[in-house]
């Protein structure tokens, strides 16, 4: 019944190490996708719960950071999806929708403000490509979409960014 046992003290210590090594990077990714500090930490905590709960089932535990990145992106997508459903329901019910949290409240960073106006999927694709420096194929794998979809998301997102920034590059 080795598979059924719960985490041992030693494992808990290892989990702590994994968290300290990978959580900061994951929180930064979540923050750039959501623009929400508290939400990004919540997403990473949820991602750790999901991954640590099935850590032995991971095909390649050495690639933990890769699984974590995928899980954070998927959880962010789920969050936005549920938020959209809730927002539409609130609007139908005549209630005021919750405020968006992903714009730069200080207005200091024009590029970030333009990024925050993109769709969540476009922003995620651009963050993975230009912050995480993933290839298009890796980005497609992380987002669980086709390569062509990534190309389209990045191209359209970048076009809109340039338009908003008034760039001719």
């Amino acid at each position, binding site marked *: 019944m080795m598979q*059924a046992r719960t985490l041992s003290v030693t494992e808990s210590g290892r989990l*702590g190490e994994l968290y300290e090594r990978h959580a900061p990077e994951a*929180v930064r990714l979540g923050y750039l996708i959501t623009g929400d500090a508290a939400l990004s930490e919540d997403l990473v905590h949820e991602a750790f719960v999901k991954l640590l709960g099935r850590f032995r089932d991971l095909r390649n535990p050495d690639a933990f950071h890769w699984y974590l990145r995928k899980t954070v992106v998927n959880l962010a997508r789920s969050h936005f999806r549920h938020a959209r459903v809730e927002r539409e329901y609130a609007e*139908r019910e005549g209630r005021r929708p919750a405020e968006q949290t992903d714009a*730069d409240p200080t207005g200091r960073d024009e590029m970030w403000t333009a990024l925050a106006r993109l769709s969540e999927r476009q922003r995620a694709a651009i963050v993975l490509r230009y912050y995480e420096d993933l290839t298009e194929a890796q980005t497609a794998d992380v987002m669980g979409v086709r390569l062509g979809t990534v190309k389209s998301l990045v191209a359209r997102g970048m076009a809109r960014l340039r338009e908003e920034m008034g760039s001719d590059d």
Partner: protein
Amino acid sequence: MTDFNDELREALSRKATDAPRPGGIPDGVVRRAKRRRAANATLAGGLALTLAFGGFLGVRAAMEAAAPEAPEVVPGTPSEPSPDPTMTPSPEPTETAEPSPEPAEELLGVDLRCGRYEDGSDEVFPDFVDLSINEKAGAGIARIRFQFEPMAGQTDAPWHIIDFTDQLVTDGEGAPVDVEGQAFVAVTFMAQGVDLSGEEFVEIYTGPKEFHLDGPIILEVEQTGDYEGMVSWGIGLSERTCYAVDAGPDHLTITFVR
């Protein structure tokens, strides 16, 4: 081009420094991971038993776990609905002339949902390619099947949500959609109905966006959205009717049973 890309990279790196800096692993994360590990181990055992005995209990339990809030009516012995191999996808609704002497007999034992139902994986993103509607005259059964072309290696059904609503609305805009009927069902699933890979949008599902039927159960079916990878359809029913769901990587079938 490079300047703009560099500017973007710098903006992202600058913004990333504003992200919170997590400390040690929170106790709550460890506790929840332990619980999940134990639950996974139990589920694995259950699945092994299910496979060993070829039973339906594991599948039924999984469905119940996926939709704990969905009220159920269980008219008979529990079992799962299976795709009807005789039903071929067709853009035109069809009717079978043979009335069944026992209404809904083929669905005895199937779990019926009378409210909201949600299931599937949000990591599955198939193409939505076809839709067919069958209503057996006099049988008290009407079936709508959304046909998918799954991505390679995907074995789960895409995330889907089915719910009754007082007013169908377009996805994204939220504009009201008038559909004939006295009860309305909103169906939303994760799929690609439009190919975004090229410069121009290319429709993958090229069939009708509206179906007008004679009932007696389904009166109208209309697409209400294809937005951000979520495809939505609205169904107008002659009256509120419970339904069974069968979903897989290549289909989502909703069977209304009266």
